[in-house]
């Protein structure tokens, strides 16, 4: 396997041999009479990146927050590593979301603690799982700042003093420091200008590959999923209208909405 990011080869080599990390079946969440998302089913395998695209209001963020445990779905089942997430005790679920899972928010201010330094932001998850040695925590924070291309001498600065792109990279470092296996990302490149986006995408692609992360990434930007995602799910009005390998879906869209979505991308 020379090019692990190529979806077809990846899928053929992984599937069948390994059990899925995340299994979702018949997931539904409604807000009163309105449908948030409904009848969503998919399997996510270790090391696989799943993109979820769709226009605003298509239910992709609802789906993500149900998966990450921020909201409780009305119906359906979520299995993580064979365990039923929805039947889990809250202690256990929150422990998972501190250790094995990570959540990258669209707005870094939602995911960062703005009142404390960058080092403390990265160290928080370590301290939450019991790290009690200041020197070690600081060394790991320094290491992670380096990995997301933030200068080590900014470790004691507050995130408010960082640019938008740096804040987003800091948020990623803060989430990945406990070496999670499953990462949820909600529009991680939203609100960043294109050159900063490109750097961030490059960084994320490297981290995903090096750490073997499984990722569920929600975005409306087709270029992002083209770069990162192995598989793609297209949502409209709370339903999955098409899913498949990313290149396949983008190059040969079958559903009318997907065709519209692909053709709506501006060409430079």
């Amino acid at each position: 396997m020379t090019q692990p990011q190529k979806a077809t080869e990846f899928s053929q080599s992984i599937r069948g041999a390994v059990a899925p990390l995340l299994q979702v079946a018949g997931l539904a969440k409604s807000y009163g009479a309105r449908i948030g998302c409904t009848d969503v089913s998919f399997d996510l395998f270790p090391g696989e990146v799943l993109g979820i695209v769709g226009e605003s209001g298509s239910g992709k963020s609802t789906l993500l927050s149900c998966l990450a445990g921020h909201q409780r779905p009305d119906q359906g089942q979520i299995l993580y590593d064979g365990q039923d997430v929805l039947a889990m005790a809250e202690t256990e679920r929150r422990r998972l979301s501190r250790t094995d899972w990570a959540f990258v928010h669209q707005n870094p201010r939602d995911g960062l603690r703005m009142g404390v330094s960058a080092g403390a932001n990265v160290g928080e998850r370590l301290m939450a799982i019991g790290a009690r040695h200041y020197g070690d925590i600081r060394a790991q924070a320094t290491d992670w700042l380096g990995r997301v291309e933030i200068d080590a001498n900014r470790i004691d600065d507050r995130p408010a003093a960082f640019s938008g792109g740096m804040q987003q990279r800091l948020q990623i470092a803060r989430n990945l420091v406990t070496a999670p296996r499953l990462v949820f990302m909600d529009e991680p490149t939203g609100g960043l200008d294109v050159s900063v986006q490109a750097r961030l995408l490059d960084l994320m692609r490297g981290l995903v590959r090096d750490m073997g992360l499984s990722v569920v990434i929600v975005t409306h930007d087709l270029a992002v999923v083209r770069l990162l995602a192995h598989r793609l799910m297209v949502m409209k009005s709370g339903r999955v209208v098409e899913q498949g390998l990313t290149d396949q879906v983008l190059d040969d869209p079958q559903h009318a909405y997907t065709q519209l979505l692909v053709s709506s991308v501006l060409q430079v």
Partner: protein
Amino acid sequence: MTDQAYTFAYLDEQTKRMIRRALLKALAVPGYQVPFASREMPMPYGWGTGGVQVTAACLVPEDRLKVIDQGADDTTNAVSIRRFFARTAGVATTEATAEATLIQTRHRIPEQPLREGQILVYQVPIPEPLRFLEPRETETRKMHELEEYGLMHVKLYEDIARHGTIATSYAYPVKVEGRYVMDPSPIPKFDNPKLSGNAAIQLFGAGREQRIYALPPYTAVVSLDFDDHPFTASKPGHACDLCGAAHSYLDEVITDDAGGRMFVCSDTDFCAGRRREGHQGRLGGQA
């Protein structure tokens, strides 16, 4: 004599029963913040309304009450509260730590070790140790429930990152019996070791925030720290200028406008006792 216009110790019997129920629950679950229906007291919030209600619920006619404010028996707050209970409960009062059966305190633990049978009541402004890190009450309760205390160490980390050492010097967070993280009220961290294994019953009342928590006698209380930055009970590096005590907590007093200053014991009863025994500090003769 008791002022007959009031029931014993000012609060009505039903209120005192309600507070006692909260106290019993707090003693049963050391360090857990028990909500209670805090009453309006004839004093402003922040002046010890929580402590006063706890004291009122604990007092019996045979009690001997001592009230201290930052260690001193003779400051406005201490004098007022002592007089309040002398009038509404008719209990005996004292300034001597050893003679008191119930001590209400603001921000200090007496220097003299307490004994079994004594009750120490703390006035607490903000009972939630996680408050300044996590503003949502629903979330802090959840964090206590699930023992998610990593955030407390984020605060200590931030201290070291900024100041090179843990700069928190009062209201220093502690862990009670390996379970609940507790705010010991704004006592100096010098007093933190006295919280642990104390023979007296320690009760904490927060009136505005409507919370009561407690440490039963001989409860293990550990101050949070890092392995490579251990907790130290710090105090000014001087001896008391009046009584010469080298190991008591000191107040700094400015004596003139030319840089003159003196350090005196914050615990006035302790200092006076030592001077009666003939101990004398640097300025002991003149003062």
